[in-house]
């Protein structure tokens, strides 16, 4: 056991780069690679959910009391701009309570009409939005016309909102293919283009062939440097928006029942969560093996997909939670062994 990891496990606070809110599980698209499995009737996995904006405004206010949270607010869905007025309300409130960076992700559908898109972008800017992530790839094309994405980029550029074009790829559908569908002049106005391989989680795990997914061949990393405090559309709180937020088998807290600052405190003290983020999901493989479950870690694309796989499974989640719930008993047992 590396001493640096042990030190981190014992002493480092679980640290978040942003507060991510998924305020709806609905989307006007139903893309094949969507990790949230979002669609017009909600998420295939989590169901049809949305969070009341009044509750979210309380959450934003309370989140300012979480010391290990960078003061960035990121609004996501589904497609969050299906509820444009709610989004504007939340950006405005985030700005007022002191968030220093206010961002969102969208498929850009709302800019299909260029003039309306400009008007919307200006309203978003005036509410406090500093940066827009725009999702685009081969799977979006079926649902979102490229002109909407082009217009979204142009509208944000006109309004002074930074843009981050987010592309996903598989072996069959490359970033080049995705970009070729967009107007070159618009793409040149983007502030950055973030390119990643598709994660085989959510709908991607069902609709995309396994052999088409790129694998990192490394499921042994940890994730404590890349966490986002995430509230999914059911109001449940998670340490990331990379897959665990779309699972139902582990409960850290619900914003309808507890303050987000208290939930964050509880999460920081959770031995299970601390093991997950500082050692990585692969730390749970021996626990599952001891319970008679053999996992082939080579099957998984990366640490996030392994984590999603474990916590999407009711049995695996139960075994892992149970292991940590009884950790104190095991510690006392070993204490008796030492004393005897």
């Amino acid at each position, binding site marked *: 056991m590396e001493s640096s990891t042990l030190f981190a496990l014992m002493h480092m606070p679980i*640290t978040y780069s942003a507060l991510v809110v998924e305020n709806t599980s609905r989307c006007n698209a139903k893309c094949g690679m969507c990790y949230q499995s979002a669609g017009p009737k909600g998420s295939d996995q989590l169901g049809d959910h949305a969070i009341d904006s009044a509750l979210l405004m309380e959450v934003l206010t309370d989140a300012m009391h979480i010391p290990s949270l960078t003061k960035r607010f990121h609004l996501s869905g589904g497609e969050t701009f299906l509820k444009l007025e709610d989004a504007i309300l939340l950006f405005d409130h985030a700005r007022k309570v002191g968030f220093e960076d206010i961002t969102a992700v969208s498929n850009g559908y709302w800019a299909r009409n260029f003039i309306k898109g400009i008007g919307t972008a200006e309203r978003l800017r005036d509410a406090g939005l500093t940066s827009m992530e725009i999702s685009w790839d081969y799977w979006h094309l079926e649902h979102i016309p490229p002109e909407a994405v082009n217009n979204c980029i142009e509208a944000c550029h006109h309004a002074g909102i930074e843009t981050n074009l987010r592309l996903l790829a598989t072996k069959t559908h490359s970033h080049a293919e995705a970009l070729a569908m967009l107007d070159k002049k618009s793409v040149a106005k983007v502030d950055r283009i973030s390119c990643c391989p598709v994660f085989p989680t959510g709908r991607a795990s069902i609709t995309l062939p396994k052999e088409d997914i*790129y694998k990192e061949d490394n499921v042994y990393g940890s994730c404590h440097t890349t966490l986002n405090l995430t509230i999914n559309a059911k109001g449940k709180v998670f340490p990331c928006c990379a897959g665990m937020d779309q699972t139902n088998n582990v409960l850290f807290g619900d914003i309808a029942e507890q303050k987000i600052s208290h939930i964050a405190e509880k999460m920081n003290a959770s031995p299970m969560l601390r093991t997950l983020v500082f050692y990585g999901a692969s730390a749970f493989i021996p626990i599952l093996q001891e319970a008679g479950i053999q996992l082939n870690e080579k099957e998984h694309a990366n640490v996030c997909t392994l984590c999603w796989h474990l916590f999407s499974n009711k049995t695996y989640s139960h075994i892992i939670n149970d292991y940590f719930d009884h950790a104190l008993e095991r510690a006392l047992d070993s204490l008796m062994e030492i004393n005897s």
Partner: protein
Amino acid sequence: MMNATDTLKYFKSINFYPLIDTENQDYFPRTADMLQWLTQLHSFYQEALGINEGRNMHSLYNREISLQGDEVMAFPDKLIQVARLAKSLGYGYSLTLPIDRFMAIQSDLQPLLDECLLSSIGIVMDGTAEQVQEKAKEYTAFLEEMASKGLSIGLIGYMEHIDSLNLLEKECFNANSFTIYPMSQEPLGSFTRNPVTSCSRHFRILVDEKGLIYPCIGLYGLEEFALGSIYTKMEDSYFGHQQYPLDLPALIAKGPTIPEWLLADQSQRLTGMPPMCELHRLMLEASVCEV
């Protein structure tokens, strides 16, 4: 109420802009001085934020050091000392160079890679279309090799050049995560007023060749707004509560106060700086700033 020492947690990145001293085979400022100051800064940072007592330990995340400039690899043995110290102090180390420069120093890059000293690299492709086409094979081979090393890569260049090399069809680029920062010949556009203009996103410590330290790119080079120097103790800098002409906590909270008349007057952006930084610098240069 935030004080000067509290603002330290916003300064997570440290960028040196050294000049090259070929006669003495070292930089200005000297490598030894940079190393000494970084060590001092790190101790001060830990002490000031209470990290040594177990407080604010989250402030140890996402910190990075870099030496900036096209010729910064002129002394690879010196640069690697900075990178090694960065790693030992828990900082990432990033290197940004034009692609031709990267290709010329590839052998010097290897020790940095072998010791896992590079957290990210920025590769700049800002040549002409003809230059890119002439070297298309070499550029593609180099970029593919970098992409396959598992580094965090930022490509800074014109999209037509990236397209011409067919990089985004290559497996090594589609299989890994990376970021493109498109350059453009188009005019930068006009200023807009965004109500969230906190300087916190732009704060970083920048060190010039004289060893003066600045809080951001907007103020870099304006000596009256230097926070201090690498040749003096941190206690004698702004962070040690010494006098400073700007209210940094206010800049973190709400950014610079730009009068409407200046916003109207400066309708066209001239630099690649964040818009508010450009305007703030203009104001300070004209000495009309309130904050």
